[in-house]
């Protein structure tokens, strides 16, 4: 089932002295919705443009279906791209835009018209073929760009920040549509985005990049729950990072001592890291529970010995977000911890007040341990 369609082999791209892409090796499988994710300037767009043929690698090879296409010009590659600006030809009608790539391929007119109509129907622009691009909304123009690329039946569809130019509501809707579209046409999609929510929501697998280097390639849930570095943990979602020392590391459990926390962090699994070496515990805000402070006995979630994984603090900041509320809790030593709490009933937001002293606690399985 997992048949590689695209392979980057030690690909490096230098602009002058700067390595925009630094020794990247990566495989994308047939049928995947793959996301290249990272902050601006991390090299993700350069990687995509090398795939499209607008840039050539300084070193390394790019293979599509096992064929080296590193130096193939863009018009001879079995990939098509949806541009960030959509790049819909303003002097042609919608139908002419979509037919553009088929005319070059000398597809007979009858066949061409049928395919154009089918593609427009696919992106829900049926009947708008005679419109000019300036008579379309931004979302519709993007659909034209999608139809224009898909009508060529490419092996891989490349999407450069496909949702960045749309407003929030439309973006939400297009996310779902892109997913449905990909399932329908069964073409491999590769998307570049700086928006982690977008990547998590759409992709079957993501590659996180930073400064031209591939940081982690994993499914969205693995990226979020099992990040392999502080960069990934911090880039994907919110996180509380506690720097400390790996004090205990047994097959069944481990303990991290952090100077930032008055208690030690207990983990219900071994880490197999260097004993006594630096380690970071990454705890997501929603994985920390808030408890009312009644008495001096810290709450215990039942999966760790007493004296671990619970700390008292004062709520210094709260933000009501509708579905959830976020709190910043200051613990002994002055460190602020981010906590997110779902508002399960209409009254939950009123449970905790600014300035209130509370207990924070978390399960022994919640922290992710990072060694870099």
């Amino acid at each position, binding site marked *: 089932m997992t048949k590689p369609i695209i392979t980057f082999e030690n690909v490096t791209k230098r602009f002058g002295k700067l390595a925009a892409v630094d020794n990247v090796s990566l495989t994308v499988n047939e049928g995947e919705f793959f996301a290249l994710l990272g902050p601006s300037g991390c090299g993700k767009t350069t990687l995509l443009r090398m795939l499209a043929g607008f840039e050539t690698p300084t070193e390394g090879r790019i293979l599509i279906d096992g064929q080296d296409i590193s130096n193939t010009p863009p018009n001879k590659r079995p990939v*098509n*791209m949806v541009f960030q600006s959509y790049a819909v030809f303003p*002097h042609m009608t919608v139908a002419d835009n979509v037919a553009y790539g088929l005319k070059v391929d000398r597809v007979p007119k009858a066949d061409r018209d049928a395919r154009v109509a089918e593609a427009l129907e696919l992106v829900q622009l049926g009947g708008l073929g005679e419109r000019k691009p300036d008579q379309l909304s931004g979302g519709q123009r993007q659909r034209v760009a999608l139809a224009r690329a898909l009508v060529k039946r490419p092996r891989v569809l490349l999407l450069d920040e496909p949702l960045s130019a749309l407003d929030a509501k439309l973006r939400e809707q297009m996310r779902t549509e892109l997913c449905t579209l990909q399932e329908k046409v069964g073409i491999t999609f590769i998307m570049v985005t700086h928006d982690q929510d977008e990547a998590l929501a759409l992709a079957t697998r993501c590659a996180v990049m930073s400064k031209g280097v591939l940081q982690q390639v994993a499914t969205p849930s693995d990226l979020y729950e099992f990040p392999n570095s502080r960069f990934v943990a911090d880039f994907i979602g919110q996180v509380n990072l506690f720097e400390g020392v790996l004090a205990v590391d047994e097959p069944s459990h481990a303990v991290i001592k952090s100077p930032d926390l008055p208690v030690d962090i207990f983990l219900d699994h071994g880490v197999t890291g260097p004993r006594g070496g630096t380690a970071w515990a990454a705890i997501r805000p929603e994985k920390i529970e808030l408890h009312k402070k009644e008495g001096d006995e810290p709450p215990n979630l039942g999966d760790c010995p007493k004296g671990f994984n619970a700390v008292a603090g004062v709520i210094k900041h709260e933000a009501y977000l509708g579905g959830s509320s976020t709190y910043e809790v200051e613990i002994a030593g002055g460190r602020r911890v981010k906590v997110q709490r779902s508002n399960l009933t209409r009254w939950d937001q009123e449970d905790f007040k600014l300035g209130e002293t509370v207990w924070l606690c978390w399960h022994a399985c919640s922290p992710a341990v990072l060694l870099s």
Partner: protein
Amino acid sequence: MEQSWKQAKAVFAAALGPPLVWLVLFFLAPMAIVWAYSFGHNAGLTEIEITGTFHNYARAIEPLYLKIFLKSVWVAALTTALCLVAGFPVALAITFASDKTKAWLLLLVMLPFWTNLLIRTYALIAVLRTEGYVNQGLEWLWNGGSGLAALVGLQPLGDFQPLELLHNNFAVILGLVYVHLPFMVLPLYSALDRLDKSLLEASLDLGTGHLRTIFKVVVPLAIPGIASGVLITFIPALGAYLTPDLLGGPDSQMIANIIERQFKRANDWPFGAAMSFLLMYLTFIAIAIQAVLSKKTPEAKG
């Protein structure tokens, strides 16, 4: 600076006043006088009587002069076409040059503007005349070839006949193209530079080669730039005076040369004035055509 002139009439009047007076005194008034002359006739050596006659205009469209008008339009049109053909690749090359090279290339295009037209035209004469650099170069090649032929045992080529490159229509067209090329390149460049480059990438991405991309995407979207380039090349080329005067032969006269003769040697100001205004009306027509065309073509948007 959000205020409109309605809110600060005094300031606006003070700013507009001097240039307005200047324009009326030294541009509109003389034009009006010449325009009035075109409806008059010579009533003595320096006296012109304005009688409201259309005689001068009638004379100007007699076959003798009409032919020169048409020829001027033809020469200007050919010049414009050659400038477009030569200038488009140049503008395209500048657009896609690196930022550093771009500045140098633009400088090279504009450099001739900083040199006097007369000097440039005489330089062209030095290049084209019978003993000019082109003929010298050709002669050197000819003699070299001749010597080579003799060396391998063939008949020598005979004496070199210099090409007649000067004082003919060819020289006029060449000179006009040379002088007007920057007028074409600069508006083309500014149109091409504004073009969204991802449109070209999209075209390549969809399987189209470079040449086809130029004709299917770049040229249609550069139409407004092409139109303004054509216009500001055609108008000065139509009124060219110095180039046909210095480089042309007896049959290379253009309207401006005829007009000059009326004001000087023929001392027939009313007739010269009538022809001047006919030339101006031609220019207006060209501008009107361009305005209509540019309304029809959609502006390239990103």
